[in-house]
């Protein structure tokens, strides 16, 4: 009996280690930071892609409805992954999707939209990345939900099916 105790306890120890590592893997997913929520949106003036004009933040987010601001770039690989989700969200007319084209070249951005579809009503051009900083973005892709000129949700990293459901629940 005593002889078998050692192997069993070692195996048990490794099983516990496995469980802990497994759990910590699950924890490192997309997270929602607590800061920057319920803050007013920043005020800015920017060029719009596809329309040769510029616009201010108050003009873009003026209506009494939900807005989704998505920061993307044609060179960003995860943006390709989340693109179908944005396409299906754009069919919901309670929600207006605004794009922010981050540090991108106009030609590449346009060819990206031609090939994969355009879910955005307006696209703000953020050539040097400064507007994204004002929004408190960490990188691309990143998504903000805006209502009544306030940021109510923020997602870092690509959107997925689960987050799509959550967004649909929020705007109901």
């Amino acid at each position, binding site marked *: 009996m005593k002889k078998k105790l050692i*192997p069993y306890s*070692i*195996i048990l120890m*490794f099983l516990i280690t*496995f469980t*802990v*590592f*497994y*759990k*910590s*893997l*699950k*924890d*490192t*997913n997309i997270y929602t930071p607590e800061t920057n929520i319920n803050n007013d949106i920043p005020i800015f003036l920017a060029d719009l892609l596809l329309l040769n004009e510029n616009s201010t933040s108050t003009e873009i987010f003026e209506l009494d409805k939900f807005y989704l601001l998505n920061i993307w770039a*044609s*060179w960003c*690989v995860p943006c390709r992954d989340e693109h179908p989700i944005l396409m299906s969200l754009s069919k919901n007319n309670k929600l207006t999707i605004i794009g922010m084209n981050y*540090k991108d*070249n106009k030609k*590449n951005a346009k*060819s*990206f939209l031609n*090939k994969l579809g355009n879910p955005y009503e307006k696209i703000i051009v953020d050539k040097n990345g400064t507007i994204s900083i004002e929004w408190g973005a960490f990188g691309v892709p990143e998504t903000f939900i805006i209502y009544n000129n306030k940021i109510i949700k923020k997602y870092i990293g690509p959107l997925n099916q689960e987050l799509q459901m959550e967004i649909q629940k929020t705007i109901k």
Partner: protein
Amino acid sequence: MIYSVVGHYSLILGFCIGLILIFLSIKNFKNSNQLDTKILSFSFLQLFFVLISFLALIISFVISDFSNETVFNNSHTTKPLFYKISGTWGNHEGSLLLWLLVLTLFIFIFLLRTKNQPTKYKILTLGFQQVIIVGFFLFLIQTSNPFNYLFPVPDEGLGLNPILQDPALAIHPPILYLGYVGSSIIFSSALAATTLKMVSSSWAIHIKKWVLVSWIFLTLGILLGSIWAYYELGWGGFWFWDPVENVSLMPWLALTTLLHCILVLERKEILTSWVIVLSIATFTLSMCGTFLVRSGILNSVHTFANDPERGLFILIFLFALIFLSLFIFFFFHQNNKNNLSNFFWLSKETSILVNNWFMMYFLSVVLIGTVYPIFLDVLSSQKISVGPPFYHKLIAPFLIPFLFAMAIGPRLKWIRSDLKDKIYLISLLIISILISFFIVKNFNINTLINTILISSALYLFFITLRDFFNKKYKNFAQNTAHFGFSLLILSILFNNLFSSEIITNLKVGETYNNSKTKIVFESINQKKDKNYKSIIANFNITSSEGINNNLSPELRIYNQPNITTSEADIKTTLMEDKFIVINLVQNQDYFNVRYQVKPFMLWIWLSVIMISLGGLVSFLQKRI
């Protein structure tokens, strides 16, 4: 584009050959009079396909083929050719392909070079090795394929992280991997030898070469990583106890212990359990390192990819290997009855055993410091960070008996020794204590532990130095390595105790003055290079002894990706390094200046080279 296709299909072919080889080795194992010649040709073919696929990736990098996702993520047309090539293994996918290349290369060499060993053993080793290889193939193809196709094809890539654009780092991964992967051969053959109950002296002699090869490469790999951190990260240190550094140190500790156990096993049929457990541990720790680095569980300067799917795969694979080896160990291994009773207290093997326990202690300290934060986070959602003081406090005191045993042990005889003719051991001890007392008194460092540490390191230093001139003493390899180790500890100690640092903010034209040093910020130049712009600051530094130095640290602003790095300027002399680094202060014309004088830096690198030289000598020499 065509290269990606070629590379991708070669990978799949290599994977299929892995499966064939597992099948062949099972078949050959059942009726094993001699090694099936097909096995040798198939493993050559496997090596060939992996090589093709690796070359295909290199070519895709060289011609900047951005339809390949890996190239797109890690390269850029304006990058110098050297970094385009080294970019191949500077990323997750490419580095795993390199792993695979070395794995297949080593098993091929193993089959080719192993003579005088039973055929069954060779076949079984191949079988275990192929299980590992097939696992890596699956991992590569499933979760991190280096040949993913990207459409629409982008015009330009994202560029390689500038801090990775450094010559030392370009060769650091391949060297380190040779060490890591070498341990996989030790793992497989230890499992095979356990299954066949042939863990004995003749096996120890055979596997010793492999242990030495992996050990040399692992030592040099760690050294290169450390040199890179010193020159490139600009923090002025060479070891940060960063989790990623720790995961390379842990296999090294296990491997060093294994090497010493093998030396004992060579002479005397003892410590067999130690050898088997350590062979398993070395490889599992290397794998565990890969898991921790690649899964993004740890937060460190090296974190590459945050992909839980990859992490999950390695985790399952790692634990499958652990349970397989545990099963083999408990099921097949029988401990010799006379294992412990056979030790005389004063003998070479006793001192090796004592130091093995110390090594295990150091290993557990590093292991706990690295994984405990993960456990705590999961079990109680608390985040802690374990820093250098933890390691220093737990390791430094135990270095003292460790160094003493290291000094005296090799002077003892195997099996049974006495203290005759050992007066010089005591006289050297007194000399070392006197010298260290003198150093400590002279430089006003009044801590007891430093005095004792310096004396113990000096003791090892003197004893090994004496033996270089002792004609009767034959073990030149061991002596070189131990001498290197004493030099390493001494250099680290002096470096820690006598370093000085000045941190200040200066504008162009200003001067900083204290009793010992005068720093004049003379001018700024701007320069444009192929893929970055740089601001070069010129400093004139005068020390109290009147020595004058011009140092020009740099700030580099890379265009792709847009990152600023600070390049330290380091003036290396035999006795000390002068290290200066600048940083921008937000929205001001001030620069933040850090100036350090670090004695014995060069000796740290040299002593590690000397340690691995000891390994090399042992590898080349015939057994006495």
